[in-house]
């Protein structure tokens, strides 16, 4: 069965820490950093990178368009 592994890259300094992406992720991949970026916002990152399937839901809802999404087909 083919399976997809995904990954997101967050443009940290453009993230405004709104957390909208967190709820949009069906696999609870995303969490917020404890650090802040240059603008003083906490930023999102993959807390559970293994669970990411690259569905791009987070990127699609991110108001600031800071998430880039990759997805790779993994044969099993």
């Amino acid at each position: 069965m083919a399976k997809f592994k995904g990954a997101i890259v967050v443009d940290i300094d453009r993230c405004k820490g709104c957390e909208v992406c967190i709820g949009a992720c069906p696999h609870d991949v995303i969490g917020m950093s404890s650090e802040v970026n240059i603008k003083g916002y906490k930023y999102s990152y993959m807390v559970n990178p293994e669970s990411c399937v690259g569905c791009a839901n987070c990127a699609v809802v991110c108001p600031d368009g800071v998430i880039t999404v990759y997805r790779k087909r993994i044969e099993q």
Partner: protein
Amino acid sequence: MKEEVLSDIINVENLVYKKTPLMTDNILSYCPGCGHGTAHRITMEVLEELGVWKDTIGIAPVGCSVLAYEFMNVDMQQAAHGRAPALATGIKRCWPHKVVFTYQGDGDLAAIGTAETIHACNRGENIVIIFVNNGIYGMTGGQMAPTTLPGMKSSTSPYGRDVHIMGNPLKITELVAELPGVRSVTRQAVHTPGNVRKAKRAIRKAFENQLKYKEGLNFVEIVSNCNSGWKMTPVHSNKWMEENMFPYFPLGDIKVDGEIVNK
């Protein structure tokens, strides 16, 4: 996940989503979680996918999105408060083969610009109007808008909108749907992935209509949040929007191909 696996995935050939180059690299001036950013981005994605950005002229309103031209990487004009549909008329009449759209807030479109909106719609100007309804005046600090809900608090309705004194929220979208000049009317949202995808399809349809039919106005309302004006966290404001805004401003198509489909 091990580092090497991650670097194996993060690779151009595996790219599935990336900010469109039709959004500039300027940092959006919007508050965290504000739907304006998403509405901008999907509009630009549509122009990119349709391949018409070279022939597009957009119009920014007065409101939080006054600086839309800093973010949308197409030729843009900035209009006086409420006058965007008049500018669009002037442009489209002179350049009928160009793609013309306005991007406006509720105060801009449904209060000060009501006349310009209704008459552009009534003349069937062959443009797209993207109307972001957040029920409040965001830019000026959270005053009552024509679309502020009954009982909803704002800085100029601090005890809640009293409809006997302040009037009822204006459903301008339903109003313009009645006009023969308007080809399509839809109401969308951009707070969940599903809604964003739907809204984007609706915007695409609106622009396709503009390209295909040489007359008729296509109107897309996006019910959105203003977490600053509503004084909520972004996530909470989206929930509040679902519970309070959507019952008053129900999502879905209102007019398709000149026929009212939902009153």
